[in-house]
């Protein structure tokens, strides 16, 4: 125990603040703040702010199938989805719905990322934009499908690890689907050698078509 005169604690405090005062001039470690609008810190890969929708190539390649799982699971209930009336073929060649309306109220969204976590189609992901202030607190804060949709390249830019992983999974699924489709087509060709006379050709092709999609679905599921 060192000798403590009266007021020693205060004097030590003065020494400490003086050290910090001087240190802030030569030790950049001490100055943790950055001059914000001019200088922005690089964001870690995992950073999440509000959700966005990934599309391949262009908006028509939106991965979202309007399955509404995210709408259901969103703790803040800030997602609104209306299914389109027509189906489109997705990247696996499977026909799927796309959302007609996909709105996220980012004033309500709490950036928890559960939507991205539960999405089975790797469609909804978390964005990294953070300058979201608007002058009106209602309409501009509701993001529509057009604002939400962003390219896969953008996804690659902000979450490279996740995006590469997602792409490899999707490629895998696509490859499987293609081999499956090829196998089905071969089977179909084999079946076509011995056509059953009692079924009309149009009906036959239709039924084969649906069974092929059903097989693809199975392939994706397994």
């Amino acid at each position: 125990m060192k000798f403590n005169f009266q007021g020693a604690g205060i004097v030590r405090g003065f020494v400490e603040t003086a050290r910090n005062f001087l240190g802030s001039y030569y030790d950049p470690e001490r100055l943790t703040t950055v001059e914000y609008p001019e200088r922005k810190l690089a964001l870690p890969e995992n950073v999440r702010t509000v959700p966005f929708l990934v599309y391949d190539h262009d908006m028509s390649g939106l991965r979202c199938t309007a399955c509404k799982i995210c709408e259901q699971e969103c703790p803040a209930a800030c997602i609104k989805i209306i299914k389109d009336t027509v189906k489109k073929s997705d990247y696996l060649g499977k026909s799927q719905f796309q959302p007609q309306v996909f709105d996220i109220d980012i004033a309500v969204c709490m950036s928890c990322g559960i939507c991205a976590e539960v999405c089975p189609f790797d469609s909804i992901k978390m964005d990294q934009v953070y300058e979201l202030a608007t002058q009106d607190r209602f309409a501009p804060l509701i993001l529509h499908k057009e604002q939400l949709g962003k390219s896969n390249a953008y996804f690659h830019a902000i979450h490279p690890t996740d995006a590469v992983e997602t792409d490899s999974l999707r490629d895998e699924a696509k490859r499987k689907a293609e081999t499956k489709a090829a196998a089905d087509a071969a089977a179909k060709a084999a079946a076509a050698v011995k056509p059953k006379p009692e079924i009309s050709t149009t009906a036959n092709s239709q039924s084969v078509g649906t069974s092929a999609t059903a097989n693809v679905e199975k392939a994706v599921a397994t």
Partner: protein
Amino acid sequence: MHTLEEIKNLVEQNVPGAVVQIVPNANPALAGSLLLDSKSATDVAEYLRDVAELKFDLCSNVTGIDWPSKEVKTKIKKLVDGVEKEVEEITKTPAFLEVVYHLYSTVLVHGPLALRMRTIDRAENNRVPSLTLVWRSCELQEREVYDLFGVVFEGHPDLRRLLMWDEFKHHPMRKDYVPPVDEGDAVEVSA
């Protein structure tokens, strides 16, 4: 740590007039709890706090639960027109409010022991004795239960609303509470 049966026996032997029931827990996560009756609850609580082999001196948590009446369908076999038939009978479960206390001991380091108290119904007979004088930690928590569930704690020194404002009429944690629609803030999400 004693088992619930042992605690029940201890209480019944040592607290005159104590009526204690064991309420089993369907989930293995936690042992069941002791249901106290209104008359002897404070005596039992004091006994649990003070007796050397239990020493439940820390009342950790007070939870209020609302059990509105539910319709339960049970299938029973009945003679209808001389033929034995399976008939669905609808019975109503009793409606009551429940307060659960979780006790621990800082001296003997054991717990939790859950105590329950039930009101007779959810309307007028919504009273249970307050345990604030036994464990001070119940003071704010019982106020919270009073505020959110409407359980009146008899003997509580300062029973006021805790979280809602004094003029508020309802008890928002009750299952049948309907929150008011704030029309000013209603915004259509889709555009």
